[in-house]
């Protein structure tokens, strides 16, 4: 009765719906609010805005610092996504197909960067890279982002690989294909959506990463979240709302893509 709409009392049902609606609004409103503010004319972020304008977008796109940091973010996220996927793919095969002992421990190890607080990973890697003089380099950004992005790629690929029926690959081998040939021509195409989703999540993790990036950044090389972070600490200019809107927009596109990839793989 508490788990079927039909037999629930209307009093209980309506109060549950009202409460849930309020909480959902609490979750969604800040996101719409920030998008609306990026088009508002008020320097002091008055809401509702007195007028609608694109001037903050102009300011964003005129300032080379914002553009450069956005390009750096894109570069770092793409590299992170590719490298994390390339490392995660063979490891996922070994874990799913292997029969050796200790697979659970290895799985825990591979997902450990997701559990250890990001701030600790940031500080630990910062300590090493500082001594080697590597902070403020593209290498430092990519390596540190791959650490936190790896678990997402591993989990996504392992899940799709477990759903794939290995006998199809075996069939190809029986028909005369070499094992590697079978993997590349049969298995990879069928788990492609899982690999794709893993790569997208890795991209998104890197794209949004703040804490590690703040430690790795130098005045010359910074990602978009770092630029937002340092600007935020000075004032709340609407240009940050523009940057936020662009970040939200990109996350939305990637989420839809990942969702489509997953739907495609479940078919």
């Amino acid at each position: 009765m508490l788990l079927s709409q039909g037999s629930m009392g209307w009093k209980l049902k309506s109060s549950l719906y009202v409460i849930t609606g309020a909480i959902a609004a609490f979750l969604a409103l800040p996101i719409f609010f920030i998008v609306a503010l990026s088009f508002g004319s008020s320097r002091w972020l008055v809401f509702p805005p007195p007028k609608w304008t694109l001037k903050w977008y102009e300011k964003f796109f005129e300032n080379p610092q914002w553009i450069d940091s956005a390009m750096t973010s894109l570069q770092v996220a793409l590299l992170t996504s590719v490298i994390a996927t390339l490392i995660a793919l063979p490891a996922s095969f070994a874990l799913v197909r292997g029969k050796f002992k200790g697979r659970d421990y290895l799985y825990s190890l591979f997902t450990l960067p997701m559990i250890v607080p990001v701030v600790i990973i940031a500080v630990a890697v910062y300590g090493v890279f500082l001594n080697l003089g590597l902070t403020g380099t593209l290498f430092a950004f990519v390596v540190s982002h791959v650490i936190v992005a790896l678990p997402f790629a591993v989990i996504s690929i392992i899940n799709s690989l477990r759903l794939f029926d290995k006998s199809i690959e075996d069939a190809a081998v029986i028909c005369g294909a070499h094992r590697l040939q079978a993997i590349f021509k049969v298995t990879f195409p069928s788990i492609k959506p899982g690999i794709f989703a893993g790569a997208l999540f890795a991209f998104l993790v890197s794209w949004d990463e703040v804490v590690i990036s703040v430690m790795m950044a130098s005045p010359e090389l910074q990602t978009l979240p770092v630029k937002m972070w340092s600007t935020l600490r000075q004032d709340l200019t609407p240009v940050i709302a523009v940057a936020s809107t662009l970040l939200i927009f990109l996350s939305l596109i990637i989420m839809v893509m990942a969702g489509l990839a997953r739907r495609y793989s479940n078919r």
Partner: protein
Amino acid sequence: MYMTLSRKKWREGTLLIPILLFLCVFFLIPLAGLLLRSLTEPSFGLQNFEQLLATSTYVQVLSNTFLVATLVTVISLVLGFPLAWCITLMPNGWGRWLLGVILLSMWTSLLARTYSWLVLLQTSGVINKTLMAIGIIDEPITMVHNLTGVIIGMSYIMIPFVVLPLQACMSAIDPMVLQAASICGAPARTVFFRIFLPLCKPGLFSGALMVFVMSLGYYVTPALLGGVENMMLPEFIVQQIQTFLNWGLASASAALLIILTIVMFYFYLKVQTDSPVSTNTGA
């Protein structure tokens, strides 16, 4: 087509080389190095830990961390429960929209959401203005750079992490069990507290542990929405390194945070029974 066992093992070994090499060089060794520094800087011994647990300002940071994590966990459980319930009630239609809102919020840039709260909660912000217009308050209340700001901002971020495990747990409950209770004459209140809530316990428990652990290690939101007196452990670690260059004390705090996290996570794994790689059920 079948390879000998030893050759197959060898092949699996090579597949694992890139990830093991990468994690060792860039993750495990730096992490071990950091933990070691807590014992060796400035000199060998436990002095950093003693200092951490004996200085009242540092103890304040620790208790603050626990206070925030506990409050955030409780609030996200209370707010996440009705959401998970509604999604379970309506798996299609409205439930799908609710799930969409949760995923959108989860995957929206953390900085963007925190910035939004900074603007919403400021003294001249929408929330203060609305409250004054309705007549609930006479003059603006300070909601940022204090505990209120941290709690609002963090609960907002953590709700999705409660809803997802809780919803998974709820959808596994057989509605007939609840039906049976009410047929036997139990009023809705009794069914809720005696049957529904106990059946949700695993979901509640894993959601709560997840949120608690994540809250302990959160940096961005407390740093932006909190004040100096609300400093939490992660912010303290960064401050010790960037401002005071005190790696010893920072590493000791990091060690404490890691131990707390791993102990909690161990309990989390105990709650969750199925292994993602070993068992083949549900694949």
